[in-house]
């Protein structure tokens, strides 16, 4: 009896050894593929090292830092008003949204609050930059899967939003418009009517994308059931924003947090999706864009009159203390932890950007997918390189 078992064991070992020999001789062990830092799918300089077995990924590792600009350190040698110029280059597609949490943190330390009109306009521009950001995502999504046409629709309609932001702030990409205690200027004449019509246009764009992409059977087979992130994993990896909501976690800082922004004055729905796959993430973003256009419309209708700047000393000195403020940015939760020692500039700033945490889930989610799915999963996680490497 023991003899038989031993023989079985021997056969097993022999088979294993034969397999190993074949693998060594023919070098079938797998292939390391280096995706990036220069690669069309990483829109920027993200590098992902994947180990492939055929076309299947057995191991993946994102390697960030090719575009690190040292913003946290740079803030230490700048005054508060200068810092907004820097930080609005973090997520370059929704720049205004980057300024807001930092300004709010500084205001919290100084114990001042912007006047209501400034708060409303801040929220308005915040949502406009969300639309500008996510509408590009919706177009780019197609490009990552080989559908070239939606990209151009996205660029065409985003242009109108950028024009709005430009007319209000003077800058298309980097407004640098937010000030401690309020805003730089008031809205220009004719802004409200123009914005209403652009929002209608954007809603049409959302319908168009839904027709072109989300209803497309090829798109659905490529995204449904691919790159599933369950609720627990999403929370453990610290995902935020649409990625988290797509995993079924109903968490939105706009609704769940009291900040001096006007989200409590408007009526909006926080969309979630139970699936947690690539399709869910894209779908939640699409719905969010629609919701954001509705928020903008409501904000415009209820815009209060009044000053746009609170009483602020000419030279801003922030009293000693520490403050943490985070907001629901287009990419997810973005927060600033500001430590002040009472000088003209902060002593230390910690920036929590959404994309850095969002791509940290890639080693987990990319395991077992095929090479084409790497691209769709990355596209659906939606990162901006500047948001990963501050």
């Amino acid at each position, binding site marked *: 009896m023991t003899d038989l078992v031993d023989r079985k064991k021997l056969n097993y070992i022999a088979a294993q050894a034969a397999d190993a020999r074949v693998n060594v001789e023919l070098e079938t062990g797998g*292939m390391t*593929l*280096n995706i990036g830092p220069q*690669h*069309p*799918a990483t829109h920027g300089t993200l590098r992902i090292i994947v180990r492939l077995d055929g*076309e299947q990924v057995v191991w993946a590792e994102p390697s960030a830092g090719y575009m690190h600009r040292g913003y946290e350190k740079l803030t230490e040698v700048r005054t508060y008003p200068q810092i907004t110029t820097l930080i609005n280059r973090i997520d370059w597609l929704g720049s205004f949204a980057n300024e807001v949490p930092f300004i709010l943190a500084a205001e919290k330390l100084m114990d001042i609050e912007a006047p209501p009109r400034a708060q409303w306009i801040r929220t308005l521009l915040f949502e406009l930059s969300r639309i500008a950001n996510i509408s590009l995502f919706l177009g780019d999504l*197609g*490009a*990552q*899967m*080989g*559908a*070239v*046409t939606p*990209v*151009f*629709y996205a660029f*065409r309609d985003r242009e109108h939003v950028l024009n709005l932001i430009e007319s209000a702030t003077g800058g298309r990409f980097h407004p640098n418009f937010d000030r401690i205690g309020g805003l730089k200027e008031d809205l220009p004449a004719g802004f409200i009517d123009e914005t209403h019509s652009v929002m209608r246009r954007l809603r049409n764009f959302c319908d168009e994308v839904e027709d*072109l*992409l989300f209803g*497309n059977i*090829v*798109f659905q*087979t*490529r995204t449904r059931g691919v790159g599933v992130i369950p609720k627990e994993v999403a929370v453990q990896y610290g995902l935020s924003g649409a990625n988290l909501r797509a995993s079924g976690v109903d968490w939105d800082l706009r609704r769940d947090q009291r900040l001096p922004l006007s989200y409590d004055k408007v009526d909006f729905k926080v969309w979630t999706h139970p699936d947690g796959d690539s399709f869910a993430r894209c779908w939640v973003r699409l719905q969010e864009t629609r919701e954001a256009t509705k928020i903008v419309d409501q904000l415009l209708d209820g815009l209060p009159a009044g000053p746009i700047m609170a009483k602020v000393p000419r030279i801003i000195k922030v009293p000693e203390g520490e403050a943490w403020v985070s907001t629901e940015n287009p990419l997810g939760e973005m927060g600033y932890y500001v430590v002040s020692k009472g000088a003209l500039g902060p002593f230390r700033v910690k920036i929590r950007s959404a994309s850095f945490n969002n791509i940290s889930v890639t080693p987990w989610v990319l395991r077992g997918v*095929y*090479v*084409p*799915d*790497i*691209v769709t999963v990355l596209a659906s996680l939606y990162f901006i390189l500047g948001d990963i490497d501050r």
Partner: protein
Amino acid sequence: MIAVTIPYWGQSLLRVLGGTLAVLLPAGTIVYLFLFKMMSFMQSRLGPMEAGPYGSMQLFAEVGKWLQKEDLYPEQADKRIFKMAPLLVLVSTFLLVAVMPWGPDAYFTNFDAGVFYMLAVSSISTLGILIAGWSSASKYSLLGGLRAAGQLIAYELPMILAVVGVVIQAGTMNLQQIVWQQNSEQAAIFGWNGLGNPYLLTQFIGFVIFMIAVQAELTQTPFDMPIAESELVSGYMTEYSGFRFLIFFIAEFAAVGVFSLIAATLFLGGWGIPFSWFGWESTVPGSFTDVANWMNVVGPIILFTKMIVLSFIVIWVRFSYPRLREDQLQRFAWKVLIPISLINIMLTAIFKVMF
């Protein structure tokens, strides 16, 4: 008729020139009309406008640009094979055009195994793509080349099976006779011969399968995994630059034109229009004695028009769809297209015997 005797070398020269024209003219038209202009209008932009009126000289500008570029190849590449690959891809389109009938007397060659020959030489390009991917010594190229090999072999089969339906119905493999079968006096759909018998109508399933297979064979979206610019950079042609890339580029769009020509000949009646419209009585199968001589000039134009319509569909789909994944594509070929085309063959055979 002017009776001129052309010596043999002159005939060969004319054939070569004609073949070159037949490959390059459709390719150029497709690139300018569809790739530059139609795609731009679909994407709400103007496309090239500077070079020539409405950018019509853009193509020459691009060709000039590519010809000036340095001929780069990777250090690790197998250089002889690497240089040969794009030519091999282009050659298959030239070989394909050789059997195309353009008019009653306008053809390069006319032989009985035309369809068989056509299907055989169309797979030479697969070889070119595979060796391009293999010899580039790049991982992206390798993945692209292997994907191409798998895909092109998988879609060769439904394409052949779709053509088998046509061959059964026509009862011949000679392309000239297939044209005759679709247009002659006797061609009729259940006794009605107002339109002749374009196999588009009677072989509709075959036509759809053929066009899908052609889309895959040409590696156009939604079947463009071998190129897949967002994941594999450019697939098998990642490492190519300069005029070698230009040859790949010409080959790609020349192949769109040539496959559209084949589809037009097999399913849309080729160069012909229903002969009964003009009272041409060609009763002997495959003889065009009664067909007017001016069809030798008008025929190519008709065929060209049909080709443009079909390649419009190919390019239209290309710009509207995202791409599938490799395994989904294989599943589609083996589990959907091949069974349907087998059923199509069976039905065709039954109808052929019954009527």
